[in-house]
Structure formats: C-alpha cells, structure tokens
C-alpha cells in the first residue's frame, strides 16, 4: 500500500537498542553512554557489547558503582550541552538515584522557569523472569509516570525499541526508557533501517478485533498477542493496544478502542495496587467511555507481592498467556 518501503533488518530487542545508541552517537557527538560495566563487559545484558571498541572509553563510559552520581553526572552534562544516556544496570538500582532523577532532572525545566532543559535518557532494564528475586525484578514504571517532568517509554518489540529510543535521545526532556530484560534476547523482529524516530505519545494497535480490547504494556504486549491468537481459535477477536509511552499517554487511541469493543482487559506486570493500568482504568471510568462498557473493566497485574526466587512462584506472580486467555474469556462471556 505504501509507495516506498523502508528496508528492514531482523534484530533482537537488545540489538535494536544497540542500533539506536550507535546511530545516535554517530549522528550527534553530544550523545554518550555511561553506566556500570557497559564497556569491555558490554553491559549486564550485552546491550552495549562492542560499542567500547567503536566509540572509545570517553563516550562509552564505565562508572564506579554509584547510581546517584551516574544520574547526577548525566543531569549536569545534559545541562551543559551533552545528551547523555545513562544505564542503570537493573532498574531496581534507580532507588539510589531517585533524588537526581525526580528532584533534579524532572523538575529543572519547570522549576527554573524554562531557562534550561535536561535532555537525558535513563535506560532501565526491568522486570521479572530471570530468577533474580525481589531486588532485581521490579517494574516501577508507575513511580515515573507519577512524576511530572519525566517522560516514560516502554517498548514492547525491537522496532519500537529502536524508534522510540531515537525519539527519547532527541527529546529535550528527561526520559525514562524501560526495557524488559526478558525481551532482550527472546524478542526478535523486523526493524526499519535508518534513524527515524517513533514519536512519543502514540500508541500502537498491533491487532484489531471486535470482542474486547486488551491494553497491555511492555512484555505483556507479546503475551497479549499470543493470547489473542488463541482466543481467535475460540472465536473471540481481540484488539490489542500497546501504549508504548506511558507519559505522554495516547489516551485518545485507548478510549476509542475501548468504546469500539465495549470490553477492556488491562494487563501489566507490575503489582496491581497503584500500577499504571489503574490510571488507564481511571481515565476510562471518568470519561463517557464508561457508558460504552458492557462489563466492568478487568485488570490483570502482578501480585501485590515482591517477586520470589522460585521459578514457578515467579511465573505465578505475573500474568502469563493462559491468564490473559482466561480473563479475556471471562470478560467476554460475562456480559
């Protein structure tokens, strides 16, 4: 249908992130990466593998284990004209850097009256599924989405990871870029070559169906799509919406799809209470979309519990494909 077709290549999620970093660093000398073990080690998840050789130790900058200084140094560098990309080795360690992220980076533009911006990306490998237990498996996007001044991006596939990271790096604001660890190697797919950004604040609708709308974030998007295939076998057609960015949020697309199907299932990995999908439920409940609902909103979330080590318990702690299938069926059969 499109006149010209962008060439694509097949990349894993990790490779797509690396491609965006590499291209951004090639295009803009102000871009550099800093974090723990990102140099010769290539990052805990191999994302920056090989980049040290290509760009040298000044721009692929290994740091001591000092998360507050990592983010703080990135803030200061951003204020002075650089475009740093900071990696927290695991998103959980951002707990050490919240002051610089939340009290400084997020507020500078507003608090200083628009005198200076903080073009900063903080990359956060997050999520459970690796057997690393409670301190290495969290999903805290809701904290960041509740922090005015931050933008929050959560790609679900390699193509989005690349395009959204390009947009995040070019954005003049601090962007929290959340990468689910399980996606790094398992998610693989076609990625357009070139450096075109995917604008922040535009949801994707990777599947259309008339029976219900599943709004899923991060790794839950692929699980929702798998579930949707299964549901289709049972004659239930699901629309799947992937917000892609939580802040800004493409509320219009979400509400429109919910209205179209009259049923909505919200799926996140994070613990239920106060998770980001609560915000989506609230937006539905406070708009006239409410009147289109043929059944109550349904949320599937992680348990309100830390992530346990035991692999079976770990799996049971967050929504899996069968959980989505079951919830969708119940939702459709309910009304």
């Amino acid at each position, binding site marked *: 249908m499109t006149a010209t077709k962008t060439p694509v290549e097949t990349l894993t999620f990790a490779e797509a992130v690396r491609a965006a970093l590499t291209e951004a660093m090639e295009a803009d000398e102000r871009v550099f990466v800093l974090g723990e073990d990102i140099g010769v080690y290539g990052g805990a998840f191999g994302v920056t593998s090989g980049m040290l050789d290509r760009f040298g130790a000044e721009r692929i900058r290994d740091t*001591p284990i000092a998360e507050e200084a990592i983010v*703080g140094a990135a803030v200061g560098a951003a204020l002075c*004209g650089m475009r740093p990309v900071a990696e927290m080795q695991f998103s959980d360690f951002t707990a050490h850097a919240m002051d*610089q992220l939340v009290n400084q980076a997020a507020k500078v*533009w507003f608090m200083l009256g628009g*005198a*200076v911006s903080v073009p900063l990306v903080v990359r956060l490998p997050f999520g459970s599924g690796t057997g690393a237990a409670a301190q290495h498996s969290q999903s805290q996007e809701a904290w960041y989405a509740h922090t005015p001044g931050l933008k929050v991006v959560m790609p679900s596939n390699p193509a989005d990871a690349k395009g959204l990271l390009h947009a995040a790096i070019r954005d003049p604001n601090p962007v929290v870029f959340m990468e689910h660890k399980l996606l790094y190697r398992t998610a693989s797919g076609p990625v357009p070559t070139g450096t075109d950004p995917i604008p922040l604040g535009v949801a994707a609708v990777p599947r259309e169906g008339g029976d219900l709308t599943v709004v899923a974030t991060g790794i839950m998007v692929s699980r929702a799509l798998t579930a949707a295939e299964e549901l289709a076998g049972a004659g239930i057609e699901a629309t799947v919406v992937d917000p892609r960015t939580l802040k800004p949020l493409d509320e219009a697309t979400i509400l429109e799809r919910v209205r179209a199907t009259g049923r909505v299932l919200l799926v996140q990995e994070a613990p239920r209470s106060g998770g980001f999908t609560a915000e989506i439920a609230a937006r539905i409940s406070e708009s006239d979309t409410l009147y289109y609902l043929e059944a109550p909103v349904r949320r599937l979330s992680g348990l309100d519990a830390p992530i346990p080590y035991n692999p079976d318990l770990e799996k049971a702690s967050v929504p899996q494909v069968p959980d989505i299938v079951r919830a969708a069926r119940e939702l459709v059969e309910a009304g």
Partner: protein
Amino acid sequence: MGSLAGSADDARRVLATMWTIRRFEEAVDEMFARGLLYGTMHLSIGQEASATGACLALRDDDVITSTHRGHGHCIAKGADLGRMMAELLARDSGYCRGRGGSMHIADVSKGNLGANGIVAGGIPIAVGAGLALKMQGTDRVALSFFGDGATSEGAFHESVNLAAIWDLPVVFVCENNHYGMSMSVDEVSRLERVADRAAGYGIPGVTVDGNDVQAVHDAATEAVATARAGRGPTLIEAITYRWKGHSKSDQNLYRTREEIESWRQRDPIDRFEQAVLEARTLDEDEIRQVRDQARDAVRDAVRTGQSGPPPSTDLLGAVYAPSEVDALTVASVAPPEDPGAATAAGGSGPVAAAAGARGEAEAP
C-alpha cells in the same frame, strides 16, 4: 597571586560584591519580616567572603552549582539583582518566572546552574558539568558550593570520587559555617576539618579562613588552575559562620548568643575594608561610595522586582520543554567572551566545540 586589597580595581569589585550580597539579604530579611515574601529564606549574611572570593577566581564561562543558601553565589557569579528580587517576589520577570523562589534561582547565562533545595543536590550536577566541559574540549571549570552538612550525604562521596578518578575540572567548595541547621559540624564527623575528607579521595584538601576573601580567592585560584590544567578536583573548606538563623523557623536554640556575637566581630566585609584602608588602596569615602552603590542597586532591584508582572498561569504548559528546544542552544551556558578562546584552548576532547555538533543553526 596578587593582593585583592592592594589593587583599586580588585578592591572595588570585591567590596561591591560583598556589600551587594549583604544589602540584598538584609533587604530580603526585612521584606520577609514585613510579610512581602513567601516561603522561607536561607541567608548567608556573614558568609559573603567565600562566595565572593571563590567566584572571583572563575572566568565568566565557568559554571557553578549552588545551594539553598545561594543568594551570595548567585550575585558573585554576576546575576541581575532585579531578576533575583523578582523571583523572590514570585514574578514572571524572575529568573524562574516565579516558579522556583529562593531555593531555585539560577542564571544559566552566567553559568550558575542553580541553587538547590536538596542538600548536596548540586554536587553530582557539578561533576556532570565538569564532565561535559571536559568532553567538549574546553578548559572551562565547574565549581560546586555546598555546606558542611552536605558532606554527610552519599551524593558528596560518590561525586567527589567520580571527579577524582576522571580528573574532572571541578572545584568543591565547602562553606563550613559550623552548623547544618542545628547540627554542629563537630558532631557529624570524627575529623578535625572538613578538608580532611579529601584524603579519602586522594585529592588536595585545603582549609582556609572563609571570612578572609583573599584566602578564599587564593585557594580557589589554585584549585581552578589545577582543574583547568586537567589535574582534577580540589576540596576547599572555607570556615565561616552564618549570623542569621538557618531559615525563617530557626530559634537558634543550638548555639549561644555569645557565639553569634563573637562571629559578628569577625565580619568578613569589615575585615577586608580594614585591609584596603591599611593598604591605602581606597579611602573611607571611596569605600562608602561602593557601599552606597550596593544599597542603591538593591533598592533598584526591589523596585524592579515589585514592578514585575505576575507569572504565567499555564502550569501544565510549563512542565516539558517543547521539542523545538535543543538542549545545546539553551544550555551552552556562558559562552566565552571571545568565542575562539574555548575552542583554541580545547579541541582535544572527543566532542570538540560541541556547539558545532550536528551543524545546527544557533543564534550568535
């Protein structure tokens, strides 16, 4: 290094800065008492020599980070008094357009990256600034002011260490005014001097009389030279005292009237004036003139501030920088007066003349 008190130009400049700080804060204190100002204030009366001596050792294109007690730093780095006062009065013409107040005044055009409401919050930022200035191949320097209390924070440790191992052009200036709020500096460390903390990072640590502007200036000048030469950071401890309470709610229960009085006797301004008089650089009349000018400038600032318009009410539109904003154009703070200078001095870094990166058009 020359004697500041011995040169008429330097003496005038130093006195003008110190008196401006003093008069500015006295005015603020009074306005607060009269209910004209909102929120809280942290005054640096009695500490003027450290801000003045340290900033005088900097070039215009060097940058600083400041603290909750930041009026002095801001003035010493060249800020416009009218815009400062407008900010305290929460006007649109204030540095932060009325959104920041005393704890967040910044003057990016003069290289002041901002006061900070978080104790030690500016220290990591200064380290990042130093990193940027180095990567950009300039010989510019970042100087971070903070208090004695800030050295207990983890942010201090992580930042000083990072600057040390990366040989960043950063100068750490601890204004030791003996207290972090109510907490005596003697109780928060086993060390004799704050500067002894430098030993834990392998960097030079010097303690100076922070009420002696010459001593501060000398120490800062040397530290700045070290930083500019690529030899990394220095920790300077400037021992001083705040005459006023910590903030507006302070009842001064943790210190004695006598102690406060004894420090008032060690007024850094008076002391410098005596040195100037002794050196016969300026006479009483000339000094009075400087003092009067400071008073007048502050009066003007109050008028300017008060005549400023109320701030924009579009708060939601003020949260995110619009996508047209390119960090570089707003953040290429304090370009050197001779645009060639920094490039000439630099060019060795990986991002030489970052201003030219991506060839974006930039207003001169």
